[in-house]
């Protein structure tokens, strides 16, 4: 290009312009540089939290900031996808330092290498055994648990006055109450709901994976399709469309709640998350353990919510301090309980909460004997076939329940093996 006046002018303007912008950047950056002050240049801790729990973390975070001088940034995330965001963003360095998450995602976090192990020290003694087991993977603790949740049988006391001893009694009471439905549980018309039906399954002695001596799950041993499982499947067939029709695949979670709130059934198998609505509707309710259908104890899945530390946190020391020493306090756990209504994982906080609130005490007592939801990555392969088999059995389609069941278990095994 031949240099003429115009382009010379343009180029010099360009250079001047960029020099200006650059010097602006440089001086702007210089302010954050090392100026040696003791009270400055601490990086804030970023916490990913859902909108519901955010207010509960605010006072604790404020106290932490006052005592240590480190800011805590609470970032609201959509809870349905937060685990996926966490897995994909931590390696890029854009993830948070701390995440609030259900414990059953831990296996996926571990496989992706995005969580760091925590050493709780004496703090660990304060937590219930089940909640600690839930955040333990491969012998190491990865999180500080704060709440425990599980399903239980909610009973409309005005329709049935006394708790039942067996499942058959539940159904008999339900029929005697003269309501449209003797018993309600929300199922998905397309995918079934193994989570809600799990206590029935465990009452037949059937589980998903075998457990090791220390309570952790052995991912190499899928026991879903064993004899106890087939027995459960056969029984489930008698409760579905081909039998008594108590289980109805067309009643999804929303419908089940709607019917129970309208007083159309005395029994409703659900978790603490639906209690506020039930109380608000003015229903006189009681919370019972689900009576056994198969002879053994009906153990619901226990889900634990916990705080996890990112493996690429650039502020790991402060974040660890925050998680281990501040979020494990009775105060923090109680304030989290107040917003979510889920029983706290810290024993002292649970005791304080359950003393005031019989619902918490009831759910907590049932959860203590529950089965922690396996936090192994292999669980991801289980749900689809499992739920679909239950759905087919409940609808009375596709042949012998036991056959459907063993076939589903074989499919699960095949997809685990990849």
């Amino acid at each position, binding site marked *: 290009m031949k240099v003429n006046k*115009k382009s010379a002018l*343009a180029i010099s303007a*360009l250079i*001047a312009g960029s020099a200006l912008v*650059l010097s602006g950047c440089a001086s702007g950056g210089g302010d954050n540089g090392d100026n040696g002050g003791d009270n400055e240049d601490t990086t804030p801790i970023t916490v990913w939290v859902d909108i519901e729990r955010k207010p509960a973390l605010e006072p604790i975070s404020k106290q932490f900031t006052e005592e240590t001088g480190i800011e805590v940034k609470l970032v609201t995330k959509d809870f349905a996808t937060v685990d996926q965001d966490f897995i*994909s963003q931590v390696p890029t360095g854009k993830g948070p330092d701390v995440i609030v998450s259900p414990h059953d995602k831990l296996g996926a976090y571990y496989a992706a290498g995005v969580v760091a192990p925590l050493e709780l020290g004496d703090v660990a003694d304060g937590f219930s055994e089940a909640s600690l087991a839930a955040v333990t993977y491969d012998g190491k603790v990865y999180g500080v648990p704060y709440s425990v949740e599980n399903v239980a049988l909610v009973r409309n006391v005005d329709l049935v006055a006394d708790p039942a001893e067996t499942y058959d009694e539940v159904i008999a009471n339900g029929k005697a109450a003269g309501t449209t439905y003797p018993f309600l549980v929300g199922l998905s018309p397309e995918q079934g709901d193994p989570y809600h039906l799990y206590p029935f399954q465990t009452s037949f002695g059937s589980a998903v994976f075998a457990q090791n001596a220390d309570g952790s799950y052995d991912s190499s041993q899928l026991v879903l399709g064993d004899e106890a499982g087939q027995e459960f499947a056969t029984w489930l067939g008698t409760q579905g469309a081909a039998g008594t029709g108590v289980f109805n695949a067309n009643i999804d979670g929303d419908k089940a709640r709607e019917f129970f709130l309208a007083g159309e059934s005395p029994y409703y198998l659900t978790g603490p998350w639906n209690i506020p609505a039930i109380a608000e509707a003015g229903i006189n309710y009681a919370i019972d353990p689900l009576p056994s259908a198969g002879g053994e104890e009906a153990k619901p899945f226990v889900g634990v919510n916990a705080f996890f530390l990112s493996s690429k946190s650039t502020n790991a020391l402060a974040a660890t301090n925050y998680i281990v020493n501040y979020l494990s306090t009775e105060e923090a756990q109680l304030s989290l309980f107040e917003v979510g209504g889920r029983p706290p994982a810290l024993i002292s906080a649970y005791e304080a909460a359950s003393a005031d609130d019989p619902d918490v005490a009831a759910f907590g007592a049932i959860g203590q004997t529950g089965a922690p939801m396996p936090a192994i990555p*292999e669980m991801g392969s289980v749900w689809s076939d499992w739920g679909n088999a239950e759905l087919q059995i409940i609808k009375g389609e596709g042949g012998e329940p036991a056959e459907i069941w063993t076939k589903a278990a074989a499919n699960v095994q095949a997809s685990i093996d990849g």
Partner: protein
Amino acid sequence: MADVKTEAPPANTPPKRPRGGAPEFGPQRKLTSGGILALVIKVVLLGIIDALAIFGLYVLIGKGDWVAAALLLAVVGLVNYIYLKPGVLPAKYLTPGLFFLAIFQVFVIFYTGYISFTNYGDAHNSTKEDAIAQIVRTSQERVPDSPAYAVEVYKQADQFGMLVAEPGGGTAFGTNEQPLEDASSAPDGWDKLNLNQVLRFQDEVLALNVPVSDDINDGTLRTPDGTTAFVFTSTLEYDEAADAFTNTETGVVYADDGEGNFRAEDGQALTPGWRVVIGWDNYAYAFTNEQIRDPLIRVTIWTFAFAFLSTILCFALGLFLAIVFNHPTLRGKKIYRILVILPYAFPTYLTGLVWAGMLNQEFGFINEVLLGGANIPWLSDPWLARLSVLLVNMWLGYAYMFLVCTGALQSLPDDVIEAAKMDGAGAWRIFRSIKLPLLFVAVAPLLIATFAFNFNNFAVIFMLTGGNPRFPDTTLPIGATDIMITMVYKIAFGSGGGRDYGLASALSILIFIVVAIIAAISFRSTKSLEDLH
């Protein structure tokens, strides 16, 4: 433009000329090709772009990202060249368009293509360095029942040490090199760090690894929070020279297997892995895994059927309504048209869920109210579910076709139709032989676009049926209403073992190829329609 160079010198003419003088105005305008204002704007804009580019280069070179830096330099150089050099007029107009095309289309396709040759996924989502650091971190194990030590962190020059309170009551001091030794306080010359200093040097503090005794097997003291320390031992040791981990208890060696994992000879791998290029493996998997291959054929057929039928049904209903509402004697047209367009205003995500509720076998509005308590399994019978998907998609899509057809019908030339009437053609004949062919000229490209859109219409399938009811003969969660894009989603993101971006990209590239071929063929054949004109 060509004369700018020769005319350039007058640009510098001193301002002694009378302002706005008519004779001078002409040539002055000419010499800057658009006025001095345009030049200033151009220079300022280019200046901003270049300044940003220099800043970008500064950052990229600082990060050592040489490829991106070179690319940025080349692009910005080219932009400067085009806008500063007189004469390349077409390039001046095309550059912004090409630039965005490159970013939003070409780059995306190439990047997807690149990802499809890697093992990128939840279990392989970072670099090898990260994987090694994480494996080292998780292999640290606290010695069972060992006590917690209260610690203070000290610093001398760039060395760090810790003073610990021993369980027995005494205190001891140690550093990375020097094992713990009884001492009442830190040695002279060491300064205690306060909390803020601990935080400022947290990387060093976290790396502080004080041996408990001369024997390394007794473990080392580490402090995860700067106030409490625990005794840790490590079971895995990384040997940089051999690029392998060794289990100190069992002696098993985990070596880099070239596929993004440290793997022992018995096939057991350490988690996590990292991202590497694995060649055609993802494509091979899609074609050789029988759980994918067989359902893929059925899903492909249904995808074509779904996209084709959806497009035809929407078009047929839209055209029918357009003709009816276009009738000159119809009254209240505006109200009808607004009503017809309404479904268009709902987001697909919402309508999918609402329709799923309405089609519920027992409690849905359709069965319970409209069909008087019928028990039709709309969403759980494979063929009825397919029909439901088509009908819901028609409900969602016909409004668009109605709008397009209304516009096209109103622009048809009246004289041709008049002439046909004069020749004695009936309404059906006019429609079939004149209106429809003329309509197709305007609408055919839109129909092809709609077909391509429906081919990948993820939202309506996912929200309405989720692909269900499931195929009974595959272990993958694929069902009768799954189209290719939802199948890709389920295989790559939905089943066990976490998300697999590599596989998802490979399958997306396959779909892209299919769609591109269809579009190319269709556009080629629509050219024949234009001969009508």
